[in-house]
């Protein structure tokens, strides 16, 4: 009898690997293999385990769904690794009503070898599976499964690992989670009596087990044109949430591969969470955009770092396996919600001198930066502003804005019009022109309307996805989130926030500044960028820094800005395929900084214009 056939440790792996592919074909027929195995070399046990359970349930309740249960109980016995069907074939002939007998298998073989059929996903996965098997850590749940199988003494139930008696527990212990899942999946083909214990094991497998964090990929991002806040601006009569809806829908339109119900969360940032930005924006925007009601959403606020925080919060959900796809972005209608509106500052801030009173006026904090870095003059700031404007003007001629800015029809006093261009562009800005501007924050100050970002209405949104989901859905990966950091500084010099944030994220990712090939920094004030340059030792004229200009030329709708930085960085990566890492960073009111490091993982570079 085959029972006598013993398999050594090395053989187990061998058998496993040779058998895997065929097992996977079998699973294909239940349409689970793709889900189980389509995910490259990263594990996704909870999701898939649950799916397998669901499938198994369906098979059990509706036998016709499972081809394996079509026939009468077969009483064929024994495992024959060397039989024509191979190991998997043998397995699929195990007792217990499996209908994939010799004949069906032969048919299956023929079907599989048809040249017009794409190779099953399984084939792609054997390599990684093997790799995992050899290198992977001991997974306690693998052992658990093995133990369960062993205890049951059910040959078939051991799902591709031959007979219980033949497998030493320690060996099963080095099964990768993938193989454990496979075993479970195969077991789910079996009739209830046999698969129940395995499914029980699978439940344990999917419950609270340790797993690797998943990589987070930035897929795509868009923004509205940025308008001047106030009655003269394009968006004055347009609702903030409708602006959010616009960018979200544009994103959905550009990425039709994403099934709406795969979106795990919709996260929208706003600094003023009242009025047309008040109804838990992520949820509000999702419902208004036509995303299924089953998809949740929420709002975040970290002032100017709102969208960045929406992205990091979403990245956390993806990494933890709580979501596969995240829609994140920000909206700020500063025309409808002037800064500081409805804010009730705690008198303790002043009474106890917790912060300097200048901390609440962003322009004043910018003046403070000049004090802190006396080497940075108004002329330096103006020169930076001129550069920002001229780079932005070029960018509007080239592809980046065409790709990242979505035109939106807006109702105005002049009827409907289309907002398709930032309202802060002044391509003919000169040093001389800037020199004479008023310094509203301080008599004889250095911060002017010309070297700062204007008050802005705008909205942004982006898609993030787990690396495996990107592959599964056939999305185009753009950037991998390498790491991020937020840090706090003195509120009255909030502009220096990105310096410690950048240092922190570099330290945590083990990268150095030299590794970073592109910097997308917000420009609320030219002096703010210049302090970062000085603090980090980057030449303000460095070509890596804000190649498409910045907020001085396009505006800064507080909580929306982060995704603009990402969208432009992603485009920068495409223009510069040789660049591997990039940074998006900005400073945050009340004294904070935010910095995210991204890796260029795109594969469709555009040629530099």
């Amino acid at each position, binding site marked *: 009898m085959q029972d006598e056939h013993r398999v050594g440790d090395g053989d187990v792996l061998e058998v496993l690997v040779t058998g895997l592919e065929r097992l996977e074909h079998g699973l294909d027929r239940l349409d689970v293999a793709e889900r189980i195995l389509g995910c490259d070399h990263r594990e996704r046990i909870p999701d898939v385990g649950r799916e397998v359970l669901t499938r198994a349930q369906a098979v059990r309740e509706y036998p016709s769904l499972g081809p394996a249960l079509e026939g009468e109980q077969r009483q064929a016995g024994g495992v024959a690794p060397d039989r024509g069907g191979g190991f998997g074939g043998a397995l699929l002939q195990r007792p217990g009503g499996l209908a994939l007998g010799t004949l069906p298998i032969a048919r299956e073989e023929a079907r599989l070898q048809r040249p017009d059929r794409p190779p099953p996903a399984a084939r792609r996965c054997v390599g990684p599976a093997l790799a995992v098997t050899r290198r992977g850590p001991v997974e306690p749940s693998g052992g658990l499964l093995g133990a369960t199988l062993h205890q049951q003494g059910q040959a078939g139930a051991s799902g591709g690992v031959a007979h219980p008696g033949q497998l030493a527990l320690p060996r099963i212990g080095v099964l990768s989670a993938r193989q454990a899942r496979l075993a479970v999946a195969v077991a789910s083909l079996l009739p209830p009596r046999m698969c129940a214990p395995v499914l029980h094991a699978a439940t344990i497998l999917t419950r609270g087990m340790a797993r690797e964090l998943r990589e987070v990929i930035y897929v795509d991002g868009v923004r509205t044109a940025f308008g001047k806040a106030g009655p003269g601006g394009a968006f004055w009569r347009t609702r903030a949430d409708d602006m959010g*809806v616009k960018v979200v829908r544009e994103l959905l339109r550009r990425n039709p591969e994403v099934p709406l119900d795969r979106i795990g969360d919709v996260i929208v940032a706003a600094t003023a969470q009242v009025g047309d930005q008040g109804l838990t924006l992520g949820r509000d925007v999702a419902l208004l955009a036509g995303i299924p009601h089953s998809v949740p959403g929420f709002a975040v606020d970290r002032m100017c770092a709102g969208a960045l925080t929406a992205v990091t919060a979403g990245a956390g959900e993806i990494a933890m396996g709580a979501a596969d796809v995240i829609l994140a972005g920000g909206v700020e209608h500063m025309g409808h919600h002037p800064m500081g509106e409805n804010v009730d500052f705690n008198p303790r801030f002043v009474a106890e001198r917790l912060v300097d009173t200048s901390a609440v006026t962003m322009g004043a904090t910018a003046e403070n930066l000049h004090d802190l870095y006396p080497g940075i003059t108004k002329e330096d700031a103006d020169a930076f502003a001129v550069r920002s404007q001229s780079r932005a003007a070029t960018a509007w001629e080239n592809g980046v804005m065409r790709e990242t800015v979505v035109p939106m029809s807006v109702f105005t006093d002049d009827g409907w019009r289309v907002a398709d261009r930032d309202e802060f562009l002044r391509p003919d800005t000169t040093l001389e022109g800037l020199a004479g501007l008023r310094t509203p924050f301080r008599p004889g100050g250095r911060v002017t309307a010309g070297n700062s970002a204007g008050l802005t209405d705008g909205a942004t949104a982006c898609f993030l996805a787990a690396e495996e989901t990107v592959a599964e859905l056939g999305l185009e990966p753009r950037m991998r989130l390498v790491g991020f950091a937020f840090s706090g500084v003195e509120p009255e010099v909030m502009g220096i926030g990105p310096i410690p944030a950048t240092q922190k994220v570099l330290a945590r990712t083990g990268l150095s500044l030299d590794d970073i090939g592109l910097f997308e920094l917000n420009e609320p004030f030219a002096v703010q960028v210049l302090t970062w340059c000085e603090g980090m030792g980057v030449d303000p004229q460095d070509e890596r820094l804000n190649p498409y200009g910045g907020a001085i030329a396009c505006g800064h709708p507080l909580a929306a800005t982060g995704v603009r930085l990402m969208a432009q960085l992603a485009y920068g990566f495409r223009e510069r395929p040789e660049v591997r890492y990039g940074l998006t960073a900005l400073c945050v009111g009340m004294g904070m900084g935010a910095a995210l490091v991204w890796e260029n993982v795109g594969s469709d570079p555009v040629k530099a214009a």
Partner: protein
Amino acid sequence: MAEVVTEFKLVRVESRLGPVALVTIDNSADHMKPSVFERRAFESMDRALAELEEGDWVAAVFTGKPYVFAAGADMQEFTRLRSREEAIAGSRAGHDLFGRVRALPFPTLAAVNGACLGGGVELALHCDARTISSAVRHFALPECFLGIIPAWGGTQLVPRLVDARTAVRFVVQNPMRQNRMLTGTEAQDLGFADALLEPAEFLDESIAFALGLVESPLERVAPDLSLLADAVRRGRAQLDGAVHGAAPAPYRALDLLEGAATWSIEEGVRQEEEAVADLILGPQAQASLYAFDLVERRAKRGVGIPQEQPRRIAKVGIVGAGLMATQLATLFLRRLEVPIVLRDVREEIVETARASIAEELAGEAARGRYTEGKARFLAGLVSGGTDYDSFAGCDLVLEAVFEDLAVKKEVFAEAERVVSPECILATNTSSLSVTEMGADLRRPERVVGMHFFNPVALMPLVELVRTPETDDPTLATAWDITQRLRKRGVLVQDAPAFVVNRVLTRMTSVLMGALEAGNTVEETDEAVLRLGLPMAPSVLLQMVGPRVANHVLETLHEAYGERFPLSATLAGFAMGSEEIVAGKGRRRSVEEIKAAVLEATADECAHMLDEGVVAEAADIDTCLLLGAGWPFFLGGITKHLDASGISERVVGRTLARAGAALPSLDG
């Protein structure tokens, strides 16, 4: 109030294919004031067209301000028309301007983003293509409903766009069916629009659609115009059954549709001009415009209603659980969503009512109007029994018991025993004295009449009856409740049978007299139908029930004597007999009966105005339009009586003046 002027606001939008003209029809007011095409709108459109004709445009997109595309012509201007020439000129001005839209040498698109009525539809039809938002709920040509015809090309372009039967339905039948309108989805299904787009990003996608037209024009299959004749014939037959020739406009519209099969567009629009000139100064059109104003504006204002803060209604008691009471309970439940307590003399009656309400709600849930949970919640709000104690805590007790004053007085007395001093006691009586009903109460100032009409769910009128005792908060609350029930209230004084039943009963008296004099039921029915009234009186009598009708007659006879002679025939009907008791008088022709009905009505209206039952003739008309379904083209009735000279002949003055001359009796 600042004057509202509609403008055609042209904005240049750069696109990948070249400049697109984006034209917004906007009167700079909010959506409560839809943009209409008045004289200065056309001046603005003329300027916009000049720019369109001269520019380097690749396409033009016409759209409206949020929620409104355009609501068509300004009806206020219609009432100011003085001559046929003016009417023709008004129609021609539209034909000329819209014709210039059709002649533009680049693709034109109407992006129908919201309400699109009359001339709005016609402008859209002159464009090469139309997109429509799935949020649109008003897409219609209401002209026939208003006694005129679409006269800016509608009758000629509709049959060239959609199939013949749809054209007849859209131009004639829908307006004549209580001015039915199409939704965006329906408009697209029927072929009026080329694309149905979601409301979010509607205009962005419409602009993209227009650019698509630039790249590849739509290929349209022209409908078979030879089918028009047959569709018009069917339409005419159906119309005969509905208005019996009383309203000329829909017939003219059918003629124009039929003509479209053979005329060129230029010939067709000239015919439209003639037709509208014939109609618009005529009595039916003017009466329709008057009626429209009453129903859409005046009735919403609450004429004579005190400006008091209405009381909160958190629990409603309904006395009686019969058919009417059940309908009322259902209405209050659905609109107010508050606990409803039913009370009747026997537990089974209450149980039957509750079951019927629950069944109705379940039916609505099955049709998707309510979620199951909501239906369960609402059904759970209904309780009831045979005692009055459960009325404790009610803010309103409405009685709908048998029409017997003693019974109703007892009901109110019992209710007053358990309710708070503020609780309103309302009666749905159709003819009894509301004042007497409250006479013995401790607080008669809380008594008010709320007279609903059968079927409650459909008839929009509530006669709000004020007694000399009724105080302002009570009346203001009754008005507020009426609004929240989505009904229209008309304030009437406490006089027997109020307005609608009094007019109908006076009419019935004439008809009964004719029957007793030897006329047939067919003849009396025909006399009333020839007026254009919606329902044959014999059918109406069956619906109301001869017992109720006779009871109202008795009440009115008691109050007014020989204007309302008791009828042995009607009394017999009330007892189940079908016999007509021969009476005095000679048999008359149908026309004579019709004339007698109108004269009696004029007389009764004058009496009501003299007594101050209502403040103005307009109130009588509002009641008849909303409570009896009398047609717009009679303007309720007084407009017709005045315009045809009947008032002058019968009561020596017009009714409009009769009402205006009297001081208001309220307060």
